[in-house]
């Protein structure tokens, strides 16, 4: 069809979940809700708050780096600020981001379910998330001040420093618990609550991404849980397991830390890759290229990604054998990642592309993520990595993959699903300008970091040699451009929320199930559990029976 949508008889619209009469009124209707959509939105609200806090910290760090010496803060403050920037961004925004907000909201909708498998545990995860977040913030102001170890909490410094590491670490521990419960919930939901006819290979690719992610959440997070617990025990009782003066081995800490924290990188990126695989077929108006390959490459990335943690420790003093093995495994991850990128590009090939705001974010993602991925290989190679370890090259690389990968798509998902979540449209022109500004600022900022790092600028220093000043200035100016793009984008969305016109049920011509219900959806998502008769991205024929009962009669 010309516009890619299929005419479906419009039913009498059910009351949307915002206005539905529940047991409770007012704020309690939100705080005690078990509706996955409300929980998703509560995550969104909290997360934006944390994101803006951490972004402000980042801007402050860049201001400090404007001149070679002390610009606006002391060395200790700088240490605390980069630690907190990392902890909040990673544990509160990037790791839970897409699964907690969009996974919660859209997983049941996309598989044609009424809710997740364990709605009350879902609410509990949100409270654990908030508790963890508050603990992280409180740790700033109590017992010796904010942690100054960096988000990795490396021993032995983290067991010696007088700053409030125990508190920050405990915050991360609580957040891990929240993450585990979400993972358990999603896997069970995907196994048990798919609509009739929705086989595994008919699931939208976002669901596949969430599925692979949930497995990593379950398999990796407990390891960081015990590791962080050991730091707390070490600081409180001095048990000595990581303390070299008592015979402990700090290297073992690094192993345990990265056994979780490397797979966590894939917790961040797999759901984002899922969203990309949703948005592309919608705007290319054709089926995604290589559905099964994309779906299975998510699992492949999850599996191989579990075994590459050692590449964070190439210069920590591990044996040559393990360095070679970890380097090889690291290169292997590039294969399923490459499969995805080629499939995305092939999806666009010969599609009738409609250029809308969400698509721009995805194209920006493919560009940014490819740079991030390829620079990852530079560090996966042993010889080059020794030169680049702990320089700005690393900082540039992980911002490209983490912020450029997950962050861009977080914003992209927000633009793609905004009409469905809020029932309103935003100004697309402004969104496109904001996205462009963001991408330009992003590249000015982080690409310059590659050059800085290559020339030898170490990370985590609050001052530097005068020869680096020009480049540092460029980075800081880039940060201003990027942040103004983000502010423009968010204010545009807020404006759309308040003043935007009413969104149709399917503004983009999407083919997955969430577009088949009203915007915003009713409490129980669908009037009847739909029946699925085909793949998720079929544009030229009807693949859903929305009212199987009525039609059978």
């Amino acid at each position: 069809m010309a516009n890619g949508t299929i005419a479906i008889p419009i039913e009498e619209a059910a009351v949307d979940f915002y206005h539905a009469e529940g047991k409770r009124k007012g704020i309690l209707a939100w705080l005690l809700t078990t509706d996955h959509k409300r929980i998703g939105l509560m995550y969104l609200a909290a997360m934006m708050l944390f994101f803006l806090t951490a972004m402000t910290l980042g801007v402050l760090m860049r201001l400090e780096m404007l001149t070679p010496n002390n610009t606006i803060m002391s060395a200790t403050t700088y240490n605390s600020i980069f630690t907190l920037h990392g902890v909040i961004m990673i544990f509160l925004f990037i790791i839970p981001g897409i699964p907690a907000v969009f996974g919660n909201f859209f997983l049941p909708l996309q598989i044609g379910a009424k809710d997740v498998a364990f709605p009350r545990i879902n609410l509990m995860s949100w409270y654990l998330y908030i508790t963890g977040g508050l603990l992280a913030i409180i740790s700033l102001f109590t017992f010796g001040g904010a942690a100054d170890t960096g988000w990795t909490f490396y021993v032995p410094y983290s067991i010696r420093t007088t700053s409030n590491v125990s508190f920050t670490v405990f915050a991360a521990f609580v957040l891990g618990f929240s993450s585990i419960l979400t993972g358990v919930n999603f896997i069970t939901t995907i196994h048990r609550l798919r609509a009739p006819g929705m086989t595994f290979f008919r699931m939208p690719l976002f669901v596949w991404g969430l599925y692979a992610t949930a497995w990593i959440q379950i398999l990796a997070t407990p390891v960081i849980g015990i590791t962080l617990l050991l730091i707390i025990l070490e600081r409180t009782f001095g048990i000595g397991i990581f303390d070299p003066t008592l015979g402990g081995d700090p290297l073992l800490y690094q192993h345990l830390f990265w056994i979780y924290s490397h797979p966590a990188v894939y917790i961040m990126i797999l759901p984002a890759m899922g969203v990309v695989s949703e948005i592309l077929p919608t705007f290319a108006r054709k089926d995604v290229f290589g559905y099964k390959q994309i779906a299975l490459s998510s699992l492949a990335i999850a599996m191989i990604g579990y075994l590459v943690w050692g590449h964070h420790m190439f210069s920590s003093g591990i044996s040559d054998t393990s360095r070679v093995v970890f380097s090889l495994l690291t290169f292997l991850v590039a294969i399923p990642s490459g499969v995805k990128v080629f499939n995305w590009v092939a999806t666009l090939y010969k599609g009738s592309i409609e250029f809308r705001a969400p698509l721009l974010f995805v194209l920006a993602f493919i560009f940014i993520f490819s740079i991030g991925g390829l620079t990852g290989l530079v560090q996966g190679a042993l010889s080059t990595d020794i030169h680049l370890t702990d320089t700005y090259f690393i900082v540039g690389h992980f911002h490209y993959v983490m912020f450029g990968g997950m962050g861009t798509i977080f914003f992209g998902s927000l633009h793609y699903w905004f009409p469905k979540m809020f029932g309103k449209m935003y100004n697309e022109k402004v969104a496109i300008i904001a996205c462009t500004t963001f991408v330009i600022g992003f590249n000015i900022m982080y690409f310059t970091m590659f050059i800085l790092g290559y020339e030898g600028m170490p990370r985590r220093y609050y001052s530097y040699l005068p020869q680096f000043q020009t480049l540092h200035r460029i980075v800081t100016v880039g940060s201003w451009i990027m942040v103004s793009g983000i502010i423009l984008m968010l204010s545009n969305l807020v404006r759309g929320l308040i003043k935007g016109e009413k969104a149709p049920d399917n503004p983009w011509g999407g083919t997955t199930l969430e577009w088949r219900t009203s915007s915003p959806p009713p409490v129980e998502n669908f009037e009847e559990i739909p029946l699925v008769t085909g793949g998720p991205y079929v544009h030229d024929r009807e693949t859903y029976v929305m009212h199987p009962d009525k039609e059978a009669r």
Partner: protein
Amino acid sequence: MNQEAEAVLGQSLSEDTHEHVHRDDIGSRMGMWLFLLTELLLFGGMFLLYASYRFLYPDGFRAAAIELNTFIGAMNTIILLTSSLSVALSIAALQKGQKKLCIYLLYFTLLSGLVFLINKYFEWGTKFQHGIYPKGPALENMSQGQIMYFGLYYVMTGLHGLHVIAGMVFISIVLALVIKNKLTSTNYTKLENSGLYWHLVDIIWIFLFPLFYLIH
């Protein structure tokens, strides 16, 4: 509509899938197994540390292991294994509708857990009296291998003890539910899940016992 749709449609109608299923026993069991997997991995990190340090300090570990009382350890193993049996029997009892028997068996499980903890308390207490605790006077003079051994011993058995307590809380809750007739012979998944958790606590102990008490 294509043929496939009709096939699935007919099937779905006969199964009455349009009705919202409020209880999904298979689903909640699946959730529990996944949760147990995370618990295993939590202890997995500790077992990894144990293996590394045992490899690094074989002599220190041997010297330290002699200090533990194998008799109390063996007794605790028997107690926990028996309690695993009683919790398994309680599920069978509830399935057969023998509510009273089920309640007695659950009380017995709780009692075993308590006895286990009391034994553990005395075991730790004696060690503390001898100054064998982190930064304690006796432990400070021991070799690094012994310090590592006791560090791991306290963390792993302590963490296991916390799990015993958590398991007892779960069992107390389902016990109350059984008494109030909330759990019956047709609706026993919660009891089954608590039982699974108890078995996990048991299994972890089965590994802790030889690693700390038996290998000299």
